């Protein structure tokens, strides 16, 4: 990939810095007012003994950040949540990239446009209603079993409702369109000529995929992974409804701290720890990727 240059030469006296500022300011000003400042308040709360309401005395404490030390059972919950994020992101990538390639290579013109919209459309239905639909599909003797038994009458039940895999299915379904479309946006720009040239030079399909397609699809894969991994580890709706007793994640723990314990400081401390973990994961991940993907 060619390195972007620092903007076009300015011809009308606007310095590149001013242009950059003009481009990013609306978005970040908006985010500051609506999200960053409120989150700063929460960050401050996470160092207080209680949310500063009413007339009770409130004091500073760092104790909430020792939550994993004081509640060792949460370590396993956190690891399971990270694993949930990894499984969901991985499966989405394994399905999403080939689907994006198929969409961009096997279809053209209007058909492709319609299919593109069809990938997003399920997203426009309410998430909760979709999850309840999944319970009908996945339960024992549910719709999935009916489908299988249409072909094999005596098939044993493969109902997986109320289990960890059921959560993964629900989450993959909820987030797959992100991966397909971000990958599509990356691979649709690949020139057919490049692929043809590589093939005519004797490169075999796996080599073409590994050396040409994958590096070019990388921005899409990365963007898709961010959009999937990050929210999934904090998810709580799919785990609660599809997971049965397996549906305990760091997201449900945080929710319970807010809704049941009324402990905003602890709940926010947990989410900031989670945020820190996410940032670390992506720092490591992007460093590793940089080594591999810039060889083109």
């Amino acid at each position, binding site marked *: 990939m060619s390195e972007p240059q620092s903007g076009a030469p300015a011809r009308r006296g606007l310095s590149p810095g001013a242009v950059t500022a003009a481009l990013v300011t609306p978005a970040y000003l908006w985010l500051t007012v609506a999200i960053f400042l409120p989150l700063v308040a929460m960050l401050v709360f996470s160092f207080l003994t209680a949310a500063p309401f009413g007339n009770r005395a409130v004091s500073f*404490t760092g104790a909430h950040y020792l939550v994993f030390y004081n509640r060792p059972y949460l370590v396993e919950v956190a690891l399971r949540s990270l694993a949930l994020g990894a499984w969901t992101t991985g499966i989405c990538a394994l399905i999403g990239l080939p689907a994006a390639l198929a969409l961009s290579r096997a279809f053209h013109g209007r058909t492709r446009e319609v299919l593109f919209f069809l990938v997003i459309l399920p997203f426009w239905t309410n998430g909760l209603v979709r999850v309840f639909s999944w319970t009908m599909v996945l339960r024992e003797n549910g719709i999935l079993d009916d489908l299988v038994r249409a072909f094999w009458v005596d098939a044993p039940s493969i109902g997986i409702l109320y289990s960890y895999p059921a959560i993964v299915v629900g989450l993959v379904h909820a987030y797959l369109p992100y991966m397909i479309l971000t990958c599509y946006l990356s691979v649709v720009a690949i020139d057919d000529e490049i692929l043809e040239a590589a093939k005519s030079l004797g490169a075999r399909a796996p080599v073409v995929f590994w050396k040409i397609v994958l590096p070019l699809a990388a921005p899409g894969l990365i963007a898709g992974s961010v959009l999937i991994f990050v929210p999934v580890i904090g998810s709580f709706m799919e785990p609660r409804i599809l997971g049965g007793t397996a549906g305990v994640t760091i997201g449900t723990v945080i929710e319970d701290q807010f809704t049941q*314990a009324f402990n905003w400081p*602890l709940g926010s401390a947990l989410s900031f720890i989670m945020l820190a973990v996410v940032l670390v994961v992506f720092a490591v991940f992007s460093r590793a990727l940089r080594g591999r993907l810039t060889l083109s």
Partner: protein
Amino acid sequence: MRTLVDRRRFNLLLGAGVAAGALGARMPRARAANKITVLNWQGYGTDEAWALKLFAEQTGIEVVHDYFNSEQEMFTKLRTNPGAYDVALINSAWTSRIAEEGLLDPIDFATVPNSADLDPLLRDSSNFAFDGKPYGVAWVWGMNGLGVRKDKAAGAQSLEVLWSPEAVGRVALYDDAITEVGIAALLFGESINDPKDMKAVVEKLKAMKPNVKLIWSSEDQWNKAFSAGEFDYSIYWSGAAGRSQKTFKLPVEFIVPTEGAIGWLDGLSVPASAPNKAEAVSFINYMIDPKFYVKWATEVGAPASANAKAMEELPADDPQKLIHKTEYLKKLQFMSPMPDDRRQAFVDAWEEVKAFYAS
């Protein structure tokens, strides 16, 4: 390390971060006095369309609603929306805590004529009291007990059934720390609001692991899973059990276990910042009127009324009347106010149990 935070200065600091005037401050819009706002769970009596129509015809007062999904959200909305609400539904376990922050007005029962018919045990419940004054009008009460599939009900009179071999993989628990810790406390014969040994509670609940199929958090989820045959034994709400029988014809029986059930009492309160207090009180009076209750209970399904006269007027075969026997009121342990750190201990215990179920 431990310095006292001055809240006002703290707020000022935060507020300074916002570009002044970028988004002009908004005052709560002035409303016509013939409109009141009620804060409640969705679908919990106060928003029945026929009732509001009737109330508007009688008084000329229009009622709009804002909803919450947990008690803490109700508390938060009261704290952060002064002047927005005229009536709030508050679980009596929270009333004194909220009154303590000066968010509620005391109730003068002389202005609520129907309060004369309230069961004295409920009307004068210490849960409503703060500083010697009542801050809520008892409205409805109910129990969290056993909701069991009809054909299994005969053998399920004790909470122990949840741990029994015949219930392996057939139990649904309610995702609520206060309730689940309370269940273990009932088994131990202790106070549901202050069990002596939280470790023993955790171990007892953990032992249920092979039996627990799912943990439900809404009536909707319970109904859908029960009708699909996912479980036979559950911890369930008494009022919801009556609704499930009546509305959805589900074969569920509500059982008050031999060890007792967990009682709860919901009251209606007037926020101190309410713009239309007189109208709010007249709405509360209407809500405890037997005429409203009987229709609500028989046509929709409701928990038990705190109004003794209303309960008498229910038909003898009404499922709610059969479930909510008046004699329970003397035996039940009711959810009561508890200090924050104890509430936290309840939640921590339940989280630990859930993490164990998941592992």
